[in-house]
């Protein structure tokens, strides 16, 4: 892990050359890891499936990845990860089709594409809008994969210096950021995060072999497994909503005009500013925990409005709106994988489930992964690059018939997801206990959705809970229960300060405003 210019005494150029060589080595290693038939097939199938679920009404990558997760058990780890990454990235592309043609964004992150894509399609330029969106998403995807390759290794070598105190603080910082992403629902998000932490502790304690909260149920001795919880919260809950919601009505007249234009493919490069804004925000926000693609696309869209080259008003078919939004949307994937690979902290619900593949195969994501299993890191990097080429190729070949998938009745899809959720959770351990957990969490997810209570933090809490507890106990054991190491270690202290600032920011702001008001009303 010598990629952070240790031997170069701060010389910038040799450092950059080192980084470049390391990157090329990693990439060639990654390509060779992917060159086996099962992994290549998994990658292609994942990409195709991702595109399809992006277009299908009501089915998002979260549901698909949750339902597919159990089937990755029998695959090689890189095959499973490639399959799920394919779905993750493919859905970004597929979501643009319905946003542009029927004004129905499949994902929250595709809303901004709809604002200018649909008006363009209405003006008879559907092919131009689709081409703009796909090429922008492609550029975003490639840029984010390159960013992952360049940033992940130095970041991992930095994270390698983390001790237990830093691990605890990093996870707590991530937890607070996740909560803050829910704005006014911060307490609800923290509540679900706490519930996730708690659920991660159920079962036999690895340190003391005591049975914790098993209620004498033999199945619970091994804990509450992540797979059926994910299938329940994301698959079954979504399916229940789909079967019980009215079929959405849409104007299907534009579906016939689906297609691509070569001029449209080159057009995004005429707006480098919009592209760079999207890339910057997408990658930067992708790294932050829980702040998903939806925020980055909306910020990129509004930023692109400033200094736009095209005179068409935004919201009436300005191509720069599509370019910025799609670049931001697809550049999230690489950013979100950075924290998973380097810190073992998922960026969002989907990467949390992808992390499940690591967990299932006994691989611990984090800095040690770069030395212990470099083929996984390099494989993920190469996968992200290849997936974007595969998806773009598939989109070019199939966009016309693909658009017709928007006609599929979501109620039928809901039934299919329920059946797949059943067999998926069962096959994870050939046990009905897993199906019962999936069903219970499916109902719980539906109730939470009905009550406007977020459930994504629960999964994130479950994924991070084990590491948080292990690090906390390790630290407290070494310091005889003293909390001093949190403030004596500089990195830990910096993260602690960040947590306090994030938590109390509204109070600081309110105090500042109060102070300002009292000054203006009382100038003396």
């Amino acid at each position, binding site marked *: 892990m010598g990629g952070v210019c240790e031997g170069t005494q701060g010389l910038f150029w040799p450092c950059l050359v080192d980084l470049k060589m390391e990157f090329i080595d990693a990439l060639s290693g990654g390509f060779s890891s992917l060159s086996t038939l099962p992994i290549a097939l998994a990658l292609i199938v994942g990409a195709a499936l991702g595109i399809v679920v992006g277009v299908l009404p009501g089915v998002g990558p979260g549901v698909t990845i949750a339902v597919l997760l159990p*089937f990755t058990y029998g695959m090689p780890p890189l095959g499973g990860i490639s399959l799920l990454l394919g779905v993750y990235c493919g859905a970004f592309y597929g979501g643009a089709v319905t946003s542009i043609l029927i004004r129905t964004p499949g*994902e*929250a992150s595709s809303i901004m594409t709809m604002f200018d894509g649909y008006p363009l399609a209405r003006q008879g330029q559907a092919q131009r809008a689709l081409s703009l969106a796909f090429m922008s998403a492609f550029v975003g995807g490639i840029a984010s994969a390159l960013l992952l390759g360049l940033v992940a290794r130095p970041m991992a070598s930095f994270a390698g210096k983390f001790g237990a105190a830093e691990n605890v603080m990093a996870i707590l910082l991530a937890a607070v950021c996740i909560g803050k*992403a*829910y*704005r*006014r*629902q911060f*307490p*609800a998000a*923290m*509540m679900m*995060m*706490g*519930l996730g*932490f*708690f659920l991660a*502790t159920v079962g036999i*304690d690895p340190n*003391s072999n*005591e*049975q*914790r*909260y098993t209620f004498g149920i033999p199945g619970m001795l091994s804990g509450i497994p992540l797979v059926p919880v994910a299938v329940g919260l994301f698959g*079954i809950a979504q399916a*229940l*909503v789909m*079967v*019980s*919601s*009215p079929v959405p009505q849409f104007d299907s007249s534009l579906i016939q005009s689906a297609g691509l234009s070569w001029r449209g493919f080159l057009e995004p490069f005429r707006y480098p500013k919009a592209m760079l804004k999207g890339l910057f925000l997408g990658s930067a926000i992708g790294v932050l925990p829980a702040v*998903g693609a939806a*925020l980055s696309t*909306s910020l990129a869209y509004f930023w692109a409005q400033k200094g736009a080259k095209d005179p068409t008003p935004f919201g009436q078919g300005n191509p720069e709106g599509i370019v910025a939004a799609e670049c931001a949307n697809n550049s999230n994937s690489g950013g979100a994988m950075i924290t998973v690979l380097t810190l073992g902290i998922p960026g969002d619900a989907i990467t949390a489930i992808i992390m499940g593949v690591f967990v299932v195969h006994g691989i611990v994501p984090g800095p040690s992964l770069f030395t212990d299993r470099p083929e996984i890191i390099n494989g993920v990097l190469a996968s992200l690059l290849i997936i974007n080429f595969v998806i773009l190729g598939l989109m070019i070949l199939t966009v016309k018939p693909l658009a017709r998938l928007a006609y599929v009745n979501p*109620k039928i899809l809901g*039934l299919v997801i*329920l*059946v797949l959720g*059943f*067999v998926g959770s*069962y096959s994870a351990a*050939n046990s*009905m206990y897993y199906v*019962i957990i999936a*069903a219970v969490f*499916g109902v719980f997810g*539906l*109730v939470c*959705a*009905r*009550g406007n*209570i*977020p*459930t*994504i933090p629960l999964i994130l809490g479950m994924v991070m*809970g084990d590491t948080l*507890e292990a690090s906390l*106990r390790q630290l*407290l054991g070494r310091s005889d*229960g003293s909390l001093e190491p949190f403030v004596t270690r500089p990195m830990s202290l910096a993260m602690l300060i960040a947590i306090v600032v994030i938590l109390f920011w509204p109070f600081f702001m309110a105090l500042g405003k109060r102070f300002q008001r009292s000054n203006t009303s009382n100038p003396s």
Partner: protein
Amino acid sequence: MSSLQARLARWSWDRFFLLALSFIAVCVWYFSTQLIQPYPHNANWFESAALFPRLSLLIVAVAGLIEIYQRRHQMASGESEELDSSAANIQDAISMVVAFALYMLAVPFLGYLISTLLFLSVGCWLLRFDFRTSMLLAITLSVTMWVVFVKVLKVYFGHAWLI
């Protein structure tokens, strides 16, 4: 007392749900000494197996109570990736949950193929699909699933009376 009752009557169900979750968290926190077997009474607090779960439960309880207090005003759902169930018909959802529960119970006895066929037929009927569509969907899907999962992927559902 009556003012408290009047206040509670104005509460929406989601606040009761949050209250129930917080209450359960407090109960589990309190009974941790019985729910952890054998409970490490002599262990230092920082070495105890109860430390982390109890801290987590404390977060659940406190955050839940703050959320209940915040929800005295209508909450606006923000722009998030969370599931939107605002248009869902809860009765339809409940009947599907019941059908799914029966499906779970049926598989060990009737076998995967027959149970899936029955579940899909009942599901289609609950969703008010016409008979032809229902049969076509149920037969095609259940046979496909059976071939893929039982025959090709060799998922074993145990010995059942039927297939």
